[in-house]
């Protein structure tokens, strides 16, 4: 039976960021994934790093996360496409204008440097947007990361920091005795850990049941659409007032359309299926925002399973009644904050004074 200081179940951005930080502080870390590092929601994410879609209360965390993403060469890898872009959040109708002003105000209160600008000003920021907007919210703190590259980047960084990676390992049981965790895998192998971190994304509800904890984690099957390569048709990250669109063009010319239009999917057999009518709605909204997109072709559609708690706020921190057991996940629009949340949890484990009360799992128990 092998032993480790820290066992992290789930090798997505949350689990991997936590593990990386702990390993850098000299701890012996093992990351376990039923598939591969960042191959679930983390690898298929839209990768938008924006304040416009972040829940207001999470803005302070998203800002820290954004800074980490913009500095990946220092703590993660040089080989990952991260771009800083201006972010424009558009309003097309009177109602949307109201919503935009109201939401921007709240986000600003929480620290986001967002200002509402006129149509003319917005066009100066990006001349490609639909000229029929009523107004836009503008934020310089925006951009994107190429999510498909996170698997490569995290794998490499974790290995360089001597993290033990167990891929294709499914957990079948977690035993807790003498303040130690015995993780039993489906293949019969076992691992003993002094500390346990659960970071299994959409499967968190299932994983927490191993510790007899029952909370509801919703599974949101989100559709993503990518165009084939195009000449440059936009230069900003575009969102809309109600938060149901994220749009950006990567350096290779492909345009990624996201925004959380649901498809079909479940965690039982990891099945996903596209919903054509929602693809069309999502594409219409995208083409309405950037009219030139209409000349393109859709190259690929895929889905990712996003986790959400009942109040759509994260659960991060200690698991009550268990010694040295922690959870991290359901970070709504969490790609931006993810690395920072991981770092925070790592600091907490390392004994630093970190306030995670906002994300306490107790609120559901």
């Amino acid at each position, binding site marked *: 039976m092998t032993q480790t200081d820290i066992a992290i179940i789930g090798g997505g951005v949350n689990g991997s960021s936590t593990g990386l930080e702990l390993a850098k502080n000299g701890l012996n870390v093992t990351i376990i994934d039923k598939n*591969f590092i960042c191959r679930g929601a983390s690898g298929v994410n839209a990768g938008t790093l924006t304040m416009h879609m972040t829940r207001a209360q999470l803005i302070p965390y998203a800002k820290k996360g954004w800074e980490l993403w913009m500095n990946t060469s220092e703590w993660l890898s040089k080989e990952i496409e991260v771009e800083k872009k201006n972010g424009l959040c558009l309003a097309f109708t009177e109602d949307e204008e109201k919503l935009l002003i109201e939401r921007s105000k709240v986000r600003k209160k929480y620290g986001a440097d967002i200002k509402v600008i006129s149509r003319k000003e917005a066009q100066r920021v990006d001349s490609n947007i639909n000229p029929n907007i009523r107004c836009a919210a503008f934020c310089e703190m925006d951009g994107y990361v190429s999510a498909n590259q996170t698997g490569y980047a995290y794998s490499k960084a974790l290995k360089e920091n001597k993290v033990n990676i167990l891929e294709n390992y499914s957990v079948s049981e977690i035993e807790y005795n003498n303040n130690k965790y015995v993780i039993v895998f489906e293949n019969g192998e076992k691992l003993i850990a002094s500390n346990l971190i659960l970071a299994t994304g959409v499967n968190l509800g299932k994983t927490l049941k191993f510790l007899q904890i029952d909370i509801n984690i919703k599974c949101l099957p989100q559709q993503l659409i990518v165009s084939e390569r195009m000449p440059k048709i936009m230069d900003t990250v575009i969102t809309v007032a*109600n938060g149901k669109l994220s749009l950006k063009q990567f350096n290779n010319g492909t345009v990624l359309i996201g925004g959380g239009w649901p498809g079909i999917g479940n965690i039982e057999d990891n099945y996903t299926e596209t919903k054509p009518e929602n693809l069309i709605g999502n594409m219409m909204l995208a083409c309405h925002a950037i009219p030139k997109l209409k*000349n393109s072709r859709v*190259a*690929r559609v895929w889905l990712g399973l996003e986790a959400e708690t009942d109040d759509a706020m994260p659960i991060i921190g200690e698991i009550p009644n268990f010694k040295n057991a922690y959870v991290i996940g359901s970070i709504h629009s969490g790609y931006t904050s993810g690395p920072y949340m991981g770092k925070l949890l790592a600091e907490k484990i390392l004994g630093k004074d970190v306030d995670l009360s906002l994300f306490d799992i107790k609120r559901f128990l």
Partner: protein
Amino acid sequence: MILINNKTKYDVIVIGAGPSGVSSAINCAKRGLKVLIVDSNHEAGGQIYRAPPKTYKSIPKNKLEENEIQKKMSIELKNYQIETAYNHTVWQVSPGFKVNAFNDFSTIQWETKSLIIATGTYEKIIPFEGWTIPGVIGLAACTVMLKSHHFIPSKKIILAGNGPLLILVAYYISKFGGKVDAIVDTCSKLDWIRSTLSLITNQKNFNDGIKWIFKIFLNRIPVHSNCKIEKAVEVDGGIKVKILNLKTGEYKNIFSETIAIGHGLTPSTDITRLLRAEHIYDEHKGGWIAKVDRFLRSSVNGVYLAGDGAGISGALAASDKGLLASTALLYDKKIISKKEFDTNTRKIKKKLDKYEVFAKAISKLNSIPKKLIENIHEDTIICRCEDITKKEILSAVDQGAKDINQIKSWTRLGMGPCQGRTCQYTASKIIAEYLNCEIENLGYLTGRSPIRPVPIDRVLGDFDYEKITKVEAAPL
């Protein structure tokens, strides 16, 4: 929005109007089933009997037997009053089954209880340095140009790769007045002679083959056996081609205007992968194929594979495979009795067994020598949609990527418009050789919609902003 929701529910939708699709559609229609057959071309025929372009008022000259067969297929579908949706490209199939397709104007969705997938194959090309330069085309693509469009790609051409298409294309190029500068074949002459006994089982194709070879002799076309193209570079007025003898290691330079190259065919698995059917790897049947039972039922209830989709047996066997799949469907729907099913399938299978001998011999001539993969230079592009080289693939493997989908995610291999149809075979071979493992262990690319790129304006048309489906706002 022009998403047309067709209210008609079909008993069967046949995707692909080649010989197997047509024969299965007719077999179902004869028994009173409501059938729709869909194809992206403007008439029935598939690849082998592909209809000439719509813009052709008449076929210029050299009318071919294939053109006659093609016409008959379209007429037969009409006679049985089978609904056709030509010019429709299928882009999404979901369980249940919903088939989504687009044409020049809109996108449409049909519903059906059963599906017959008769989407045939696409060609396999093992890359070499310079295979992406203008003037390099596929051997099968060249066949379409010749047999359906009646034109030659250029006056002078080099034919490379392996298998019977080499001699077929050489024959038609000569017939249509072109000059074949060389045939570069990875097989030896002995390989061809060895296959004779098996090939003769299919008298019709064998006779054609003899006729083609005779023409090659007559026109004194140089044949370079055991050879592959090493490198092609654009030069003034054409392409300079460096060929390598895989046995002796000797190089030779040839000059020509065009290269047509192909190494056999791979079954199209886009739809079965989308439906999450089980697949198996079978090198002799063309690579990854949908797993089927003896009567061509896939692992998904109600989905049948006609034609070459579940393993390559060739055009002549295709219509019988269509019969077999549709007979299984008729039996499953309780339209024919067990007795009728047994009698009919026994008859069809007997015929098919004969074709299998022939298909096996062809597959041997199309087999990929190990050296052909080993020999690929590390800077050669493997995924031409995303410009991913062999070196980049292997570096991802070195970093710990363990399956083909992880390679896709890390390198972008297979993320372009062709969705990996062109590169999956070679990439898998390269990785399997490097890791010294079986291709099965690497898996296959997850099926993703759309299976063909969808023009956005065609799906959306003109729309009012107010008409966009309202969705609940994200929480603040």
